């Protein structure tokens, strides 16, 4: 009878006596046997199916056609998401806000005190309704479409096509996909980094995902683009110009992603393990019904529930701030006033800063919160109808300039991840440190970039009123 300790020490001695490549030998033995068995069991007649796969691959990875296919598919996905979401969002908002009005009048009839009605319906419920109506439609369209491409086997080809670009930034080609996922929702993009099996590249993808604006930030970008960039144009050109401006912002985001990936891979993450493998699986017919079910349940509802759990308290805080009187106006206005000097340093103003602090749980409520503070209303409200009205409010009454608009666009693109994403980063990395790093690098970049543009504008003597 031998003791466990004896067995272990024998194992160690035997290991040292083995040639150092004995693990290679094991793999080699196994594969040699696999090859022998496969030769007996597998009979190949012709290569019909493989020819089709190869033909498709020729197109989707070809130098010109590959790029073309990729751009067309991206455009289709984005168009489907944005245009479809518009219709759905409006319908959903009408429904939910209508329900809110109903609930409020019910409370009033019962004789509930004004602060309870306000807190419940104008605070908590309104926050929830806003997040759901803005967030749900684009995700409900984006995720199934994305999942179809995933199940087809097309997405690994995108990673293959773009890997050379990401390699230069020290990242993995699959990051192109987690970034695309980030367009839908950054939290989902962070979860999607599981497909990257190399620790260093996965961390890079997690920490930089937030530089891709998720659809929760689109309302801010679209409003700014419509009001400030496309203002000089009329008719259908407006929409096109606005869309191009948003695309330009996304591209700037991609640029920052690559730059930050490059920096991280050479500094903070230098010592992390790294390897590159990418399997290109055969193309397969997707199972549409299952995709619809799983992408709605696993991704959309999952993300939505997480967002709702943080949006409800945010709605409550916003209502409280907007309804506690402070001097002549509300506490919210007073805080915005106090933050104004700080905001101006970055070409923004106090209201924007406050809106972003409150909107840490969910970016969807940035615009309504800003509108609430600007108009002095007691609850979150929609931007006024029409570009002219918004211009009048922001430029006319609150002294916005083109610099404010540009810097708000940049800030919206670069600022810290929302609470949902931060929690997700913590869960995926199981490290408070990386969650903190993700906040520090994004917020740092946002303040640095906006400070530089604001200072430049000041130095050049542009927009004196905004600076």
């Amino acid at each position: 009878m031998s003791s466990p300790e004896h067995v272990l020490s024998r194992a160690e001695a035997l290991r040292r006596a083995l040639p150092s490549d004995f693990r290679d030998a094991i793999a080699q033995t196994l594969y040699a046997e696999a090859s022998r068995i496969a030769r007996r069991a597998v009979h190949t007649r012709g290569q019909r199916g493989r020819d089709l796969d190869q033909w498709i691959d020729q197109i989707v990875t070809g130098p010109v056609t590959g790029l073309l296919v990729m751009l067309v598919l991206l455009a289709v996905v984005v168009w489907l998401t944005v245009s479809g979401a518009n219709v759905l969002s409006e319908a959903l908002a009408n429904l939910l806000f209508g329900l809110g009005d109903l609930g409020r009048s019910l409370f009033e009839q019962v004789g509930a005190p004004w602060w309870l009605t306000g807190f419940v319906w104008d605070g908590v419920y309104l926050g929830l309704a806003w997040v759901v109506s803005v967030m749900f439609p684009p995700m409900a369209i984006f995720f199934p479409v994305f999942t179809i491409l995933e199940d087809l086997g097309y997405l690994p080809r995108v990673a293959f096509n773009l890997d050379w670009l990401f390699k230069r930034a020290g990242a993995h080609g699959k990051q192109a996909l987690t970034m695309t996922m980030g367009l839908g929702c950054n939290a989902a993009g962070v979860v999607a980094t599981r497909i990257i099996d190399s620790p260093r590249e996965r961390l890079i993808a997690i920490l930089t995902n937030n530089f891709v604006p998720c659809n929760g930030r689109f309302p801010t970008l679209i409003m700014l683009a419509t009001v400030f960039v496309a203002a000089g144009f009329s008719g259908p050109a407006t929409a096109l110009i606005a869309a191009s401006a948003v695309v330009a912002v996304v591209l700037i985001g991609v640029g920052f992603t690559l730059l930050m990936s490059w920096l991280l891979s050479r500094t903070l993450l230098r010592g992390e393990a790294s390897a590159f493998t990418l399997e290109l699986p055969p193309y397969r017919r997707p199972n549409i019904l299952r995709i619809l079910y799983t992408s709605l349940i696993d991704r959309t509802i999952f993300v939505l529930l997480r967002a709702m759990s943080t949006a409800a308290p945010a709605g409550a805080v916003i209502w409280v701030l907007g309804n506690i009187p402070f001097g002549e106006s509300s506490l919210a206005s007073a805080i915005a006033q106090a933050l104004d000097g700080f905001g101006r340093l970055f070409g923004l103003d106090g209201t924007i800063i406050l809106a972003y602090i409150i909107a840490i749980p969910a970016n969807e409520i940035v615009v309504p919160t800003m509108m609430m503070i600007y108009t002095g209303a007691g609850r979150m409200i929609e931007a006024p109808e029409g570009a002219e009205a918004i211009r009048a409010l922001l430029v006319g009454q609150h002294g916005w300039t083109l610099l404010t608009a540009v810097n708000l666009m940049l800030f919206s693109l670069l600022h810290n991840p929302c609470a949902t994403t931060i929690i997700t980063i913590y869960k995926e990395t199981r490290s408070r440190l990386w969650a903190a790093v993700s906040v520090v690098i994004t917020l740092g970049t946002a303040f640095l970039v906006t400070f530089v543009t604001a200072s430049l504008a000041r130095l050049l003597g542009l927009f004196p009123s905004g600076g």
Partner: protein
Amino acid sequence: MKNAAFVPSESCATCPAFAQLERMGIKMDRFDHVIALAGNPNTGKSTLFNALTGLKQHTGNWPGKTVRRAEGGYQFNGVRYKLVDLPGTYSLLSTSQDEEVARNFLLFGQPDCTVIVADATALERNLNLILQILEITDKAVVAVNLIDEARRKGIEVDTRALSCDLGVPAVPIVARTGEGVMALLSSVADVIAGRLQTQPRRVCYTPQLQAALDELVPLIESLAPGLPNARWVALRLLDGDARLQQALLSGELAEIARRQHVPESRLSRQIAVVGQQ
């Protein structure tokens, strides 16, 4: 076997086999046997899992997608099975977290049977993992999935020859349509009941390695008499697997070996929880 399809939309009167399967989703408070589901990534493992349990797991056409270990249940011929979906891996020899989870469940979770899903269009690559799993357990069934896709590509898999070579049943299936799934389930039942005797193929390593194993295996067997996979344990100890070293020191391995001889205790035992965070 082609008639054994169980597409739910079809009338089940024409396929008696379908009546034997009941999907139980996550209701698994009582179960008679534990089945592990292993395989390479992207072989339709979760399609099979969903088809059997009625759950809707999604992993996508993606190699290397880590998902948490999923569990579900099904009832076949009146016997309740708990199905544990292991992470898809190419191998069980590395230190990656996925492989550790899969490896440790096969060893310490002691499933009553392991279903290894293989991709018929890339059998050679899949055989690497199959051979490794057969080192750990001899209660296994190979499900050769995507037979339809292979046929389209002009690839025929002779599952009879495969069974012969591997020493465990190999069943052709199309998890997407349900083709062959009934045959797979009855093979699983037969293997568990001992109606089908398995004699898994064990590879011959290089002489040097073989000599080291020959020295270690008797030592391990003297500590854990009757351990069915002493050679695999020896291989892992040579590799320096910390989890196995600890299992050896704590007597966990001896415990596993002891339980092998008391089949009754296996029915009601608690499943070892491995790889959970």
